[in-house]
């Protein structure tokens, strides 16, 4: 469960990123976050893995107050979240396998089991058998799928995606959206920010609409 309670984020120069946002996302929900550029979508998403800390208010994940988490505890929070960002953020000097393997290396997973998990994650995103390829040789959509495989390889209960289809053409974007829906059907809580809500509309997600750092609409599924 993700809870935002009167979350405010102010930046130097008194620029308001979030102006007191409150909502609760229950386990297994599919939530689409939308709004214009500068509405506060990325700021809100960055609060969940504690990339950003609120100026005031509380952000809690599964009962844990993330806003007051010690710096040394943040990595352990992130290990339980799947993060997909606008850019795929792959390591271009490593092949697909090593990229997807990285979260498991970080957690010190036994190599043999880790290799099985990587293969399964790549299979899940439709890149089975392409482990040895280098990211630079993949299309934008394929790179984003590698990033998604990396996000799910640790089997997180929450997946957060910040504009995951921003740089993809319509066909690739639909593939990615379908992939997210399949994860949600498997029980993963999804919070996806997007400029293009239509991609997800056929699955009737809950919609949170931000404007100028405020939650202006919360449309139930």
């Amino acid at each position: 469960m993700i809870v935002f309670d009167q979350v405010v984020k102010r930046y130097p120069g008194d620029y308001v990123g979030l102006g007191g946002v409150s909502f609760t996302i229950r386990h297994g929900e599919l939530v689409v976050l939308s709004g214009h550029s500068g509405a506060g979508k990325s700021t809100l998403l960055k609060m969940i893995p504690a990339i950003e800390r609120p100026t005031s208010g509380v952000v809690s994940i599964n009962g844990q107050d993330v806003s007051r988490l010690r710096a040394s505890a943040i990595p352990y929070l992130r290990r339980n979240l799947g993060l997909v960002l606008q850019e795929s953020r792959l390591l271009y000097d490593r092949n697909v396998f090593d990229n997807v393997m990285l979260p498991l290396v970080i957690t010190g997973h036994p190599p043999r089991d880790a290799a099985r998990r990587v293969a399964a994650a790549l299979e899940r995103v439709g890149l089975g058998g392409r482990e040895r390829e280098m990211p630079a040789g993949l299309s934008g959509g394929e790179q984003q799928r590698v990033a998604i495989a990396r996000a799910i390889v640790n089997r997180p209960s929450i997946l957060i995606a910040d504009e995951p289809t921003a740089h993809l053409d319509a066909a690739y974007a639909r593939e990615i959206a379908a992939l997210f829906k399949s994860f949600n059907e498997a029980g993963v809580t999804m919070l996806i920010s997007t400029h293009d809500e239509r991609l997800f509309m056929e699955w009737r997600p809950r919609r949170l609409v931000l404007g100028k750092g405020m939650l202006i609409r919360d449309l139930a599924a």
Partner: protein
Amino acid sequence: MKNWLYLHSHAIGIAVRRLLRQPVGTLLSALVVGIALSLPAAGYLLLDNVASLARGVSGSPELSIFLSNEASRADIAAMDKRLGTDGDVASYVFVSRDEAMRQLERSGLGDVLGGLAANPLPDAFVVTPAAADPALYQSLLARFGEWDKVEHVQLDSAWVERLHALLELGKSSVLLLALLLGIAMVIVTFNTIRLQILTQRHEIDVSRLLGATDPFIRRPFYWFGSLQGLLGGVVALATVWLAVYALAKPVEGLAATYGAVFSLSGPGAQESVALLAFAALLGWCGSELSVRRHLREKLS
């Protein structure tokens, strides 16, 4: 424990890959570190060789009892008897004036001595005291000086003291040199790691996002610095051995011209391991300082 080993082996793998990715840079860094370390290492080795030479010739100071020209065979025999029964004397040898002359000729002064009409050297006893005790030396010096037909008694320790003082000075200089070059090596590693952090920034950011802890991110840099130091240590060791190999024959030849037998010895197993460990430790120190400074900046 298994997990700890796995994480370290992973970090070593990354560090080795980073070293191999820039072979020229790695080689140059190892050469810089190696040459910097070889200077104090060679200095230490030289002092060690000189010290062992000094130990060989100055186990304990000797007293030379020079007899007057009037000393007869009977006087010499009496002195020999007295020395033989003296409890403060460990050993002694009689060096006749003819023997002393031959020794001087062997040392290369034959041409000078050949011009003399008569042998000017006195008969002498060379005495080794029973204990290494400065008070005993002084007591023997006074006692032998009072004997009849003794011209002069000399304690041959001044040059040994001077040699030891020079060795001490040499040790301090080598220590100072090692300290300065050690600091230089730490700075070299500090800078290399800083550049590494800059080039690996993307990987660091991604790893942090995926839940990497600070030790996970720092570990490869520590290993990188230590391995670079170790490579430098290997270069230093090779340089020292090369120098020993190149200088061994000329030094032996030089010693032979003085009628001495001396050969340069290279670093032993213990010294080699100490040098490599010291080099790796300095590399680790440079990494630690760099990582603390630059990864902290990254976090803020």
